[in-house]
């Protein structure tokens, strides 16, 4: 599988990353070599192997339904560059 610059730009857009032409070119090379490397796995026959979700053999840990009163407003908003009356303030998202 080979990526082209269009695909690189699309991925960048989806990831909200702005790339210069130079950077896109570098990334194209890097990502193609990553794909080449991963593609070596195709040499292994996996027809009878179940997909592996995780290398750990443990089971999904679960917790009880207990709510903790954390009153997080001040702490959670501390890093926010803009806020108003307990709300995060962000540039207008139009819909």
């Amino acid at each position, binding site marked *: 599988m080979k990526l082209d610059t269009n695909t690189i730009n699309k991925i960048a857009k*989806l990831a909200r990353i702005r790339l210069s032409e130079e950077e896109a070119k570098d990334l194209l090379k890097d990502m193609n070599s990553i794909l080449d490397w991963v593609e070596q796995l195709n040499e292994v026959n996996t027809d009878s192997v179940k997909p592996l*979700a995780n290398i750990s053999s443990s089971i999904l840990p679960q917790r009880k339904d207990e709510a903790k009163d954390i009153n997080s407003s001040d702490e959670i908003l501390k890093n926010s560059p803009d806020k108003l009356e307990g709300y995060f303030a962000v540039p207008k*998202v139009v819909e």
Partner: protein
Amino acid sequence: MSNLIKGKKYEWETVIGLEIHAQVKSNSKLFSNSSTAFGSKPNSQVSLVDAAMPGMLPVINKYCIEQAVKTGIGLKAKINNYSVFDRKNYFYADLPQGYQISQYKYPIVGEGKVIIDFKDGSSKDIRIVRLHLEQDAGKSLHDQNPKKTYVDLNRSGVALMEIVSEPDIRSADEAGLYISKIRSILMYLGTCDGNMQEGSLRADVNISVRKPGYEYGTRCEIKNLNSIKFIKQAINYESQRQVEVLEEGGVIEQNTLLFNTSTGKTRPMRSKEEAHDYRYFPDPDLLPLEIDQEEINKLKKTIPELPDDRKKRYVEDYNLSNYDASVLTADKLVSDYFDNIIKSDKTLKESSKIVVNWLTSELFSLLNEKNIEINNSPITPENLGRLVKLIKEDIISGKIAKDVLVEMFNTKEDPEKIIERKGLKQVTNTSEIEIIVEEVLEENKKMVEQYLSGKDKLLGFFVGQSMQKSKGKANPKILNEILKSKLSKKH
């Protein structure tokens, strides 16, 4: 009953599928232990996990899993012993992680079905494709400031069950019945509080139109509707719009739409489809969810009697019509109230139809007038049962009973006490009624003559006059008999 829309040129069929988002009624969120309480101070229930601080890991809430399984059982659906949590990637200000943890390829619940009931007594199956667990997003306020959006993350991470239907729905009414039924099942199960105003239950509507018998048309999705009324309005508007576009030779573009509740119209969302490349992949922070059969069987035993079972019981044991039974069972509180009336006295079982009438027309109108929920009704189920019994035993007439009911509603008194206090007992004593009838005939001699010369309709007048004289207490049947016999003797 035809569901077809008449266009200018052809008849069209609307094809609808619903995605219902139901918040799990839990204390804490799906992957963190912050509270789910509604209406708290903004951002006061946001843990570091919910805020997606680096290094934080999700730990799943066992209770939420159980509620999803129970809901699946209630939807007569297949429970999957193996399911997987995936990341659904998109950017939005109310989604701090940059992805929503959801289930894509392997949902926790598979195919099921719900039954909707129509007024004419018929019913229809709506097939369920799946139910999966996912995180809710935060809330954005767009209308406070022209340049800013304000974000509250309290809702972010609350567990949602997304229930997806097959496109089996054919009209706005069917969609309304379907979501009401789902809501009713959720509320019987106690897995969601069903509060649409607070957004605990909301729906996305997929809608297309076609000529009957043809392939499905291109569909549009109307997002985030939070009342049954809006769902119906949106469907009616959108199907009409699509018909007009097609009849004018246009094509329907696959679009995501928003419904404006004040204009009653739909419009396309501004964000383009390219943004909808969610790049799902299994969340590496979460292992697959495995549920063994034993656990599912244990949960099955906790399932209460559901609306359809109750409906069946009402039809079979109480001889109610399918539709009456479905109306009665739609709201668990109403149905519980009805059950309590019938339970309060053995003889009421055979009068269940009269009980239904007194409950759904008389008591409901009093409750509606005062805006009181049935579980706060000033009239207890036992007392309403006693009132019905008094009518059945001819102690009071149905007409008087209405006044007694109002008095019971206002004073919380027993019906017997009110009847005693106000002297409302029905007069069944023939000689008392005879006296009244004779007085009436005496006072209206002219009318009697007219009656005798063939104006039969005047009988109603005499009945009315006599009833009035008895202050409504005369037993109508006896009164009628006496009147007729007295009049015939005058010939």
